[in-house]
């Protein structure tokens, strides 16, 4: 994309964008660490993950001041407007992802402290991998300005939802089999829910990326596309 | 590529180095020098102006004054008509009276020692030839004075006048003076009796031209100038303003109007005598109008002033901001309405200023009028635009050419009158500009 006549404007927009990208990377890392802590029931790592969330909060605050500065001084319009508005929303979403990761870490500590260690259901690891990949991909789209890829990320959420449903049923079944494990298993159930929420946030981020790049609402664009597809099928 | 330049610009400038200081001093010096030169130029111009005006006023002021001599006149009934006659008859009879004789008799009564024909003539010549007219006026106005003796202030001749004003060096040898020793003695006698006065001479303002310096007046020339300028104004102003409005507001911009424009500008630079030739050829030659008449002079001067009026009126019209035209046009005013409701009223002060300056130039012109015969010697004050007349600058030209010493001061005095009118006209132009100038 061509440069602004005013170079400092470009610099500020780049700053906003880089903060978003750093937050995305950090959130993915937090998720990975939380999952590792859970898998290995490593309380130190879990604690480290919890602390890491503060960094995300700080970055979110930085993004906010930068964006407000751009509004106040540049009166952004068109893509610049969409860029900064999306960035502001995305940082909130990514910060939420970090919160979910922190949640997972906290639960892993509870599990580790509890009696009778029950190993993590396999499906959770798959879900985490899927969510991790979604974060990575959506940040990739953001950096590469690839609107179509954002749609792909958006669509992956369905897969994660299916995995969550499967995990939910599986954990529920294990609860019924072994009611004495309910306390621990309910932690796992919540973790599955957290992972599913992370996926949802990644989807939301994908919507924002799509809007920032194209100016269209992803849902509407998809409906239009689907409509066109079904029409062509009808012919 | 920019690295080198950037390095140069990054260097700190030492504003206190000797080099910089020297440069600054030099700059201040040139500043001062230029201001000094400019001031001297203005001062020199001012000095010239003061000298010129001072010289004219010094020479001209005495021109407004005139020496009179009080003479005891015996209105001898034997020489005069019967005062009981009807006023008209008395006046008619007065025309045949030899007043010179009456005057001579009165003077001889005053100087009983004077005898002989030559001395008598010398004595009477101390009074102006206009003295007879003065006596006639007194008698016609009041026939009852016949038979009495009265003290009457009579105009002195120009030679006496010059001596009284101190313009003639009486220490010169007698043969180099017009006024001989005898006459000086008589004059001293008059003076010692308090019979000589130097006072404001209203005749200079109210009379027409004359051969005698003490009898001349500028009124004829003022009226001639006035009539001529009236004709000029009535012709040049409407034609000039109409042309300017047409050229500026309506005329299409094409080759033809360009040529017209260039030619108008060239006309403004044509020597005025050429307009005189044109006037001579056309108004006198082709139209057969009267020579020396203000109407011809006015029309000729109108030709001369037209380019000035057109150019200044165009400038004034062009100076009306286009936004005013846009505003009027945007409201749906037609071209005529735009021009006459807005542009011309706003340009009027400028147009009038230009016109007055053009008129002032016309007032000062003499060359073209010489060509159409307004240089004639005309005693009567003109009564209309077809009467023979002269104008102020031509009058000045005529007097400057006259040999009598007394005409020097009359010339300067006439120049003062002309300058007064020019300054008044320019002052009016300035006043109009100040009064009607609009801000937008």
């Amino acid at each position: 994309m061509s440069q602004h006549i005013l170079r400092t404007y470009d610099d500020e927009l780049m700053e906003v964008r880089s903060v978003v990208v750093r937050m995305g990377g950090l959130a993915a890392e937090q998720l990975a660490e939380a999952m590792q802590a859970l898998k290995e029931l490593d309380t130190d790592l879990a604690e480290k993950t919890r602390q890491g969330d503060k960094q995300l909060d700080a970055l979110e605050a930085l993004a906010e001041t930068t964006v407000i500065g751009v509004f106040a001084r540049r009166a952004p319009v068109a893509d610049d407007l969409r860029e900064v508005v999306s960035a502001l929303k995305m940082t909130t979403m990514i910060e939420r992802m970090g919160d979910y990761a922190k949640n997972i870490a906290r639960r892993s500590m509870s599990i580790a402290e509890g009696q009778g260690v029950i190993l993590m259901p396999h499906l959770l690891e798959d879900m985490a991998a899927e969510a991790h990949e979604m974060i990575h991909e959506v940040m990739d789209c953001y950096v590469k300005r690839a609107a179509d890829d954002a749609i792909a990320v958006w669509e992956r959420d369905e897969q994660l939802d299916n995995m969550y449903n499967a995990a939910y049923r599986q954990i529920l079944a294990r609860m019924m089999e072994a009611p004495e494990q309910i306390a621990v298993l309910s932690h796992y159930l919540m973790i599955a829910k957290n992972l599913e929420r992370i996926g949802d946030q990644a989807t939301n981020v994908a919507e924002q990326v799509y809007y920032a790049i194209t100016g269209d609402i992803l849902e509407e664009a998809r409906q239009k596309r689907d409509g066109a597809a079904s029409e062509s099928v009808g012919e | 590529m920019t690295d080198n330049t950037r390095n140069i610009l990054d260097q700190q400038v030492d504003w206190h180095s000797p080099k910089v200081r020297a440069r600054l001093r030099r700059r201040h010096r040139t500043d001062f020098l230029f201001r000094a030169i400019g001031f001297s130029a203005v001062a020199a111009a001012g000095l010239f102006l003061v000298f010129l005006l001072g010289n004219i006023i010094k020479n001209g002021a005495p021109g407004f004054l005139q020496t009179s001599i009080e003479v005891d006149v015996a209105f001898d009934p034997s020489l005069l008509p019967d005062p009981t006659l009807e006023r008209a008859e008395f006046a008619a009879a007065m025309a045949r009276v030899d007043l010179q004789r009456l005057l001579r008799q009165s003077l001889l009564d005053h100087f009983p020692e004077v005898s002989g024909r030559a001395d008598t003539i010398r004595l009477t010549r101390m009074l102006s030839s206009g003295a007879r007219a003065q006596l006639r006026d007194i008698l016609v106005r009041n026939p009852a004075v016949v038979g009495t003796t009265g003290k009457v202030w009579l105009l002195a001749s120009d030679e006496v006048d010059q001596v009284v004003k101190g313009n003639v060096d009486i220490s010169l040898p007698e043969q180099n003076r017009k006024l001989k020793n005898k006459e000086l003695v008589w004059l001293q006698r008059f003076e010692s009796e308090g019979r000589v006065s130097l006072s404001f001479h209203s005749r200079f303002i109210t009379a027409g031209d004359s051969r005698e310096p003490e009898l001349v007046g500028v009124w004829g020339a003022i009226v001639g100038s006035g009539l001529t300028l009236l004709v000029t104004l009535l012709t040049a102003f409407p034609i000039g303003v109409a042309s300017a409005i047409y050229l500026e507001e309506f005329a299409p911009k094409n080759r033809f109007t360009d040529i017209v424009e260039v030619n108008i500008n060239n006309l403004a630079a044509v020597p005025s005598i050429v307009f005189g030739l044109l006037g001579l050829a056309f108004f006198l030659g082709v139209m057969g109008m009267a020579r020396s008449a203000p109407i011809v002079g006015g029309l000729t001067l109108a030709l001369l002033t037209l380019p000035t009026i057109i150019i200044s009126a165009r400038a004034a019209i062009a100076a009306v901001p286009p936004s005013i035209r846009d505003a009027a046009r945007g409201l749906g005013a037609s071209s005529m309405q735009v021009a006459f409701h807005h542009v011309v009223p706003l340009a009027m002060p400028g147009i009038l200023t230009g016109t007055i300056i053009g008129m002032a130039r016309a007032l000062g012109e003499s060359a073209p009028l010489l060509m159409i015969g307004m240089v004639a010697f005309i005693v009567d004050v003109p009564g209309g635009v077809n009467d023979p007349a002269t104008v102020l600058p031509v009058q000045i030209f005529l007097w400057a050419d006259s040999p009598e010493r007394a005409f020097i001061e009359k010339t300067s005095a006439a120049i003062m009158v002309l300058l007064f009118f020019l300054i008044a006209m320019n002052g009016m132009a300035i006043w109009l500009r100040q009064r009607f100038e609009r801000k937008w």
Partner: protein
Amino acid sequence: MLNAAIESENEALSPPKMTIRDVHVHYGDIHAVKGVTLDLRPDQVTALIGPSGCGKSTLLRCMNRMNDTIADCRVEGQVFLDGQDIYDSQIDVVQLRARVGMVFQKPNPFPKSIYDNVAYGPRIHGLATDRDALDEIVEASLEKAGLWQEVKDRLDQVGTALSGGQQQRLCIARAIAVNPEVILMDEPCSSLDPIATAKVEALIDELSARYAIVIVTHSMQQAARVSQKTVFFHLGEMIEYGDTTQMFTAPREDRTRDYITGRIG
């Protein structure tokens, strides 16, 4: 493609006040406006934006034939006012300009009284039968222009003595005094301070309910603030036409985007 968009819009809305169909303007050899097609609705503000020399002012001046006075200006295509071609030889340009009023870049009140400024239009068009009617028109126009309260006690004061913003509102009052249907504004706020600008913009907003308003502006923010439709011109071409909100959040054309965001195009 643009034309198709406009025409499809036509079906949905009330009939346009002014329609511009494939208008080209030439100044001698210069092709200043290249085939513009545009509709102006009676209750909308349309903003024309674009870099200097893009032809937006030229197009504006086509709409009330102010270009007529420029010698080598040639207009092709059609401009309709209520379905009547204004370039038709039957149309009287004087009457046209009363119906399509204009407000200029620099406030240009006549150097006459405030009253005479507003009364001039009605006078030359004979809109008032007597003095009372004229008084009424003057008051109503000044009222509508939001100036009445400020000047009612000094109507005989000269219009040029008002402040810049008041002068511009006086010019607007003068334009609406002849009861126009369309008001063209050529950068009306470019010489005003922000407060005066805000007042004029508020006035434009109020007037938009009654008149079709076209405004040429160099201030993108102003276009965004006052208009419902925005047209972007570049080098005499109409690049984009659309809802102002859409234009300023998601312009369709790269050239529009580069211009409104201040990019090196």
